[in-house]
């Protein structure tokens, strides 16, 4: 079997599953830090109850994020050794900084936080969760710095066997990461909010749990989520404009814009056909893509044909357009999921402001339980768009994905298949077990009234 195809599937599957756990860790660690700070400031027990209750969800998720994260670090050596050789001088440094600056911080202090409730003072305990949260989010910054080089290489010179670091400051302040990190950060806030709200809604429906604690959690998570969703969209908009300039092949494919248009319409729905280079059943908003790309209704937006021609001139003959259907639909699913999340949160915010609790709105509460899936859909499709949309490159403009794979003489298809199957199955089983444990935790919450317990 072709090791390249297997290695691509492996990276995609393991990374997407790893990234189920990451955004929740990023967002909920800060959410818990805020709640625990409120507890230290006010001394009100309800904040502590909330922290203790959500801590369990956080820790189950955190454990899965940590163990799948270890695999991430070694995957570049396992299946992508030629990528590691080509990119090592640039990629290794942020990865090592991530370990030294972030992993030590989060992994050391999470231990103190879990075990330290009665070993350190409340103030120190609250500080410790802040340090954990900062560590997790710092780790996101540094791995995104590394990824940003793959999206938009700067600060390097070409050496004999790969890229060489020329300016670390430039690598670390890559304009791409200035969009990408906030995008991931606010996505983390949104994910955490939907998990807290959705699980609370489940408890309202089950008539379980301490109602004061749940009301508080939902109120705070609504605000937290609104900030997250509104800002993730805002940053995403500017990130898109940046990509129109810097990675036109990705954006042309994400819009399924086969031919340049002036002004360009925005496609709401289409079934792109790569063979005929046309879209079936397309629904469009006139001139809106010009506006999204350049803030006016008149500008020309480069289509796939023009981008392909320009890249052929630059890099020689070849196919420089990523899979259009996947890129187009991953982009749309991300945006639509985000939009739906915004509407749900606005309505919830309205209910909160009217003092209407979720147990009076069982239909909406049910919808909120299912909407836990929305942020996961959005972050997964977001990464699919970012990574599939960069193809055929693994490092944009510098190294094609097929050149990065470990040579078949070193790592054969059978070996990749073994690791893909073993790690893939273990990830899926453990994710399932983790979800089961979260559900069990919810069911262990005391019933609200004796009647409801029957």
């Amino acid at each position, binding site marked *: 079997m072709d090791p390249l195809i297997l290695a691509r599937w492996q990276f995609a599957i393991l990374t997407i599953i790893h990234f189920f756990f990451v955004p929740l860790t990023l967002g909920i660690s800060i959410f818990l830090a805020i709640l625990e700070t409120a507890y230290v400031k006010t001394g009100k027990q309800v904040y502590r109850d909330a922290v203790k209750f959500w801590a369990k969800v956080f820790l*189950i998720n955190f*454990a899965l994020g*940590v*163990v*799948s994260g*270890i*695999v991430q*670090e*070694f995957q*570049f*050596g*396992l*299946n992508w*050794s030629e990528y*590691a*050789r080509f990119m*090592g*001088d640039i*990629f*290794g*440094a942020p*990865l*090592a*900084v991530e*370990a*030294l*600056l972030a*992993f*030590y*911080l989060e*992994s*050391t*202090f*999470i*231990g*103190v936080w*879990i*075990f*330290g409730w009665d*070993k350190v003072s409340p103030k120190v305990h609250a500080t410790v969760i802040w340090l954990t949260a900062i560590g997790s989010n710092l780790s996101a910054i540094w791995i995104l710095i590394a990824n940003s080089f793959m999206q938009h290489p700067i600060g390097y010179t070409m*050496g004999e066997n790969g890229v060489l*670091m*020329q300016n*670390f400051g430039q690598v670390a302040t890559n304009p791409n990461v200035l969009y990408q990190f906030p995008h991931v950060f606010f996505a983390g806030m949104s994910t955490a909010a939907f998990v807290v709200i959705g699980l609370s809604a489940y408890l309202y429906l089950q008539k379980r749990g301490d109602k004061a604690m749940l009301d508080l959690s939902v109120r705070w998570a609504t605000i937290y989520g609104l900030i997250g969703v509104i800002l993730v969209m805002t940053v995403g908009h500017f990130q898109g404009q940046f990509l129109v300039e810097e990675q036109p092949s990705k954006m042309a494919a994400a819009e399924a814009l086969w031919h340049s248009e002036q002004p360009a319409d925005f496609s709401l729905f289409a079934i792109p056909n790569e063979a005929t280079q046309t879209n079936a059943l397309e629904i469009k908003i006139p001139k809106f893509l010009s506006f999204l790309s350049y803030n006016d209704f008149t500008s020309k937006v480069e289509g796939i044909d023009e981008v392909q021609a320009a890249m052929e001139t630059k890099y020689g003959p070849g196919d420089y357009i990523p899979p259009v259907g996947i890129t187009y639909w991953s982009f749309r699913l991300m945006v639509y999921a985000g939009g739906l999340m915004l509407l749900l949160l606005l309505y919830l915010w309205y209910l909160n402001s009217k003092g209407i609790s979720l147990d009076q709105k069982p239909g909406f509460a049910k919808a909120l339980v299912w909407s836990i899936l929305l942020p996961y859909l959005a972050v997964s499709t977001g990464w699919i768009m970012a990574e599939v949309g960069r193809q055929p490159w693994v490092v944009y403009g510098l190294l094609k994905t097929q050149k990065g794979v*470990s*040579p078949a*003489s*070193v*790592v054969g298809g059978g*070996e990749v298949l*073994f*690791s893909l199957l*073993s*790690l893939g199955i*273990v990830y899926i089983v*453990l994710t399932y*077990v*983790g979800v089961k*444990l979260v559900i*069990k935790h919810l069911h262990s919450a005391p019933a609200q009234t004796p009647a409801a317990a029957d």
Partner: protein
Amino acid sequence: MDLKTLWFILITVLFIGFFFLEGFDYGVGMLLPFLGKRDEERRAILNAIGPFWDGNEVWMITAGGALFASFPQWYATLFSGFYIPLVLILLALIFRGVGFEFRSQEEGEGWRNAWDWLIWLGSLLPALLWGVAIANIVRGVPIDENMHYVGGFFNLLNPYALIGGITFVVLFLMHGATYLALKLTNGLEKQAERIANRTWVATLVMAVIFILYSFPEVFAKSQYEGLALVFIAIAVVALLVDGYFLKKGEMLKAFWAGGVTILGVTAGFFASLYPNVMPSSLNPQYSLTINNASASHTTLTVMTIVALVLVPIVLVYQGWTYYTFRQRISTKDELTY
């Protein structure tokens, strides 16, 4: 000293930190189902490393990341070449890490037993396979002119490497038992002390075999045989001192002596490697060295500043956590794990 040599030393230091800290974690995991008869005993054992294991594991992650940053060719050749052992280590670490968190979240005996054995396996495999990996690295493996490992999986399971692996296992068992003798109570600490004494004998036997075997296989070919042997001698003396303290029941001193043993062994074998990082058994010309495997001067400079600033800070706060959780764990405590 040039930066490449400095980074060779820093990588050695990270591996020493990794083997010292994860060494006792792995040992504790390997002892879990045997030392702990009843559930609360097993929980006490797990809680003895509960606050620390994750921070300790980062020493391995950092060693891997720093390897990538400072010697990308070494990272690429090693992890693509030692593919199956690395995948097994990763699988083991997944079960182990998740096991700590999940194990006590369900009451069922079958559930807890299953996780205990997964934690056991998840500790045994990395201890064994890191030993196998290090032994293979220092002995030399088939590497072709393009820096590609061409030996296949079974070539890694040669007698020398397996002896290295077993030596790591017994050394970490002793280190873990010594640690538990310091952290437990209710009589468990006495049992741990007895195990530490017994595994010390096994460690001594294995260490002697491994070191004698290393003379023809490794030291005789080394460019820095003298330096390597100084460290090995330190390790042997520390191991003997360790045995003395174990016998007297002075466990804290024994623990540190065991730590020096790990330091001496690791430093000794890395010193025997220098200036190679992965010698080729096919042709010395094909060997990866600190020169042909290293990152650029710019990257090494950046990394040097980062490491020299951050590693001391890490040591301070990790030290603080050990101080915070210095009390012995009783089976009668309210246990978290």
